[in-house]
């Protein structure tokens, strides 16, 4: 018998229509999660570039490079989800603009251009410095020649590093970061719109959905930035301890790094808490409003929220993913270790929120008198169970870190500090 898409991981209960399955599975959970992290990381970097919040300077450049590394991870889950992945390009070639997904092409490409050009303006001086440094060398190795080629291309022929030119770069960065904030919010707001505009789905359809998605996006973006920042700083401390003598520039001591790290992390967590409060307020407003207005679909939605998905929503998402890290971040005397635990819980909470929206929204039938249960495929026994299973989701989750590793070779996140 030929399996139907969705049949492998769906169990039906009571009265469910014959064609109903959980068609949007774990990759569609990953999709808003990853785009959310991209948008959030960019907003964090813009807080410094546009609003001049000096305390965030250290994490701002990191957040920018990181959001660039995360960019390819946004469409990746979509491609893994598509039944016809080779036709995915049609979304860009023949967009049908009444569809929220068709906006993806425009918004995503526009946003990518903004991030890429902002990155270029931030790093232009660095490219020029690298090129001049290699050119000065009397003898060049093969690796040097390759680096020279790459960095020469990256400069795009703009070698002017006079103070006036650098000043112009800074102005361009500010402008692009400013333009990027609404675009980043739009990028994620439209991801919320994809769900909020589905009138057939009683759980998804609310105008609050895009706003809720933007807020939780910023929360997850900031949390992942803090977490990765701490991990990288810890690695650098280890690295510096080993290679202090061999360093080219006379690197900072481990103590110096720790001082900077603690300061940056403390400042950034304040913004994390602010956005967490906004996100939770909106989410609770949504649930309260649904209960109060109690339209036709409320009977089944109540059963899903307070019954079948109670653990997912109230225990995993709200208690462990929101309340616990919130408390951890607000107890005085914040330490790095406590922040790491809290940000990991926050990320988990945002992931569970996406899960509860995407899977929760499909866990009841259009008949409003039947349920569907999702079983995440773990062991991949076919291409489909890999793509839309645990390992497919993990692929999407780790991809940005590999990209970041490569990007960091050309866009070093910490170069200025080491040069001093």
């Amino acid at each position: 018998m030929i399996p139907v898409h969705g049949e492998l991981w769906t169990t039906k209960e009571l009265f469910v229509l014959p064609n109903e399955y959980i068609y949007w599975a774990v990759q569609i959970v990953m999709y808003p999660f990853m785009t959310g992290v991209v948008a959030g990381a960019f907003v964090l970097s813009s807080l410094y570039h546009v609003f001049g919040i000096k305390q965030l300077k250290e994490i701002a450049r990191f957040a920018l490079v990181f959001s660039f590394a995360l960019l390819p991870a946004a469409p990746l889950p979509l491609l893994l989800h598509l039944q016809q992945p080779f036709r995915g390009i049609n979304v860009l070639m023949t967009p049908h603009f009444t569809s929220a997904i068709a906006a993806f092409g425009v918004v995503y490409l526009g946003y990518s251009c903004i991030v890429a050009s902002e990155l270029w303006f931030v790093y232009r001086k660095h490219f020029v410095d690298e090129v001049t440094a290699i050119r000065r060398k009397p003898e060049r190795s093969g690796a040097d020649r390759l680096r020279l080629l790459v960095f020469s291309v990256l400069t795009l022929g703009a070698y002017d590093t006079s103070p006036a030119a650098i000043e112009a770069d800074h102005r361009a960065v500010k402008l692009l970061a400013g333009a990027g904030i609404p675009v980043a919010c739009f990028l994620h707001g439209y991801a919320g719109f994809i769900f909020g505009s589905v009138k057939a789905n009683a759980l998804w359809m609310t105008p609050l959905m895009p706003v809720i998605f933007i807020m939780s996006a910023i929360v997850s973006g900031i949390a992942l930035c803090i977490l990765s920042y701490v991990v990288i700083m810890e690695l650098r401390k280890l690295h510096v301890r080993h290679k202090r003598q061999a360093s080219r520039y006379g690197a900072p001591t481990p103590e110096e790094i720790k001082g900077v790290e603690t300061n940056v992390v403390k400042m950034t967590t304040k913004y994390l808490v602010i956005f967490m409060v906004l996100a939770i307020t909106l989410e609770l407003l949504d649930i309260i409003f649904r209960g109060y207005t109690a339209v036709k679909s409320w009977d089944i939605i109540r059963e899903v929220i307070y019954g079948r998905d109670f653990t997912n929503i109230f225990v995993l998402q709200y208690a462990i993913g929101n309340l616990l890290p919130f408390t951890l971040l607000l107890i005085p005397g914040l330490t790095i270790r406590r922040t790491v635990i809290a940000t990991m819980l926050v990320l988990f909470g945002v992931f569970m929120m996406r899960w509860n929206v995407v899977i929760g929204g499909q866990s009841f039938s259009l008949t409003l008198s039947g349920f569907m249960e999702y079983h995440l495929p773990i062991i991949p026994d076919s291409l489909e169970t890999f793509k839309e299973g645990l390992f497919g989701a993990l692929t999407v989750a780790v991809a940005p870190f590999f990209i970041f590793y490569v990007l960091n070779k050309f866009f070093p996140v910490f170069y200025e500090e080491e040069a001093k």
Partner: protein
Amino acid sequence: MERRDFLKKAIIAIAGVSVPIASLEFIDPKKLFAARPELHWVFLVDCNKCVGCGFCVKACKLENGIPFDADVTRTWVERYVLTKDNKVYADSPKGARNGFTSQKIDQEAAGMKDIKPGDIDKAFFVPKLCNQCDNPPCVQVCPVGATYKTADGVVLIDRKWCIGCGYCIMGCPYGVRFFHPVYKVADKCNFCYHRITKGLKTACVDACPFGARKIGNIKDPNDPVTKVIMTERVGVLKDEFGTKPQAFYIGLSKEVR
């Protein structure tokens, strides 16, 4: 010529040219070639006549190449059983491909529900198919325009262009869409477009032994289906979604979802 003069003259020239251009009407090829002012397909289901034999489902699957054993179907029949204690039970085992051969209600994971005949208040069957909505949410949400509404009122899918994102499946309030297990693209009932455009009836209409299913042209006042819709009391499914369904039902009960 001075730059100022040039600009002045250019503006005058543009203004002068645009007046005759504005009088031209751009020809929409869709209107020119596909407009069928005399034709708009509608469907009429008479729930009172349906006995749940499932011949329509079987005929549809065979006619439209939907794998016979796959648990998806372009049309299906639902059975509703209302008991004396005000409970509603409903099922559609395999879309009623083999009819309703058991008195027990298929509750999927919750097992088979046995209801004693004495406890039943009323029971009836409801055939379902694509409503070919006049305001189709599936067409609205398709990101590549692979699904579209024809001028004669049927919503079609381009199997060569569908990317398989499933947004249309999510957008349909009636659950008529699914992924075709072989072609891996969205699929749904199209009123047997290949048949009706050649003057035939749909496979399900031909297969129904009781005349519970009828297809007609709402633009033709002499069409028997049009006469029923215009003169009798008919209902549509889920009109609160604003989709303007084009499948009309006689004897629709409020329990039908």
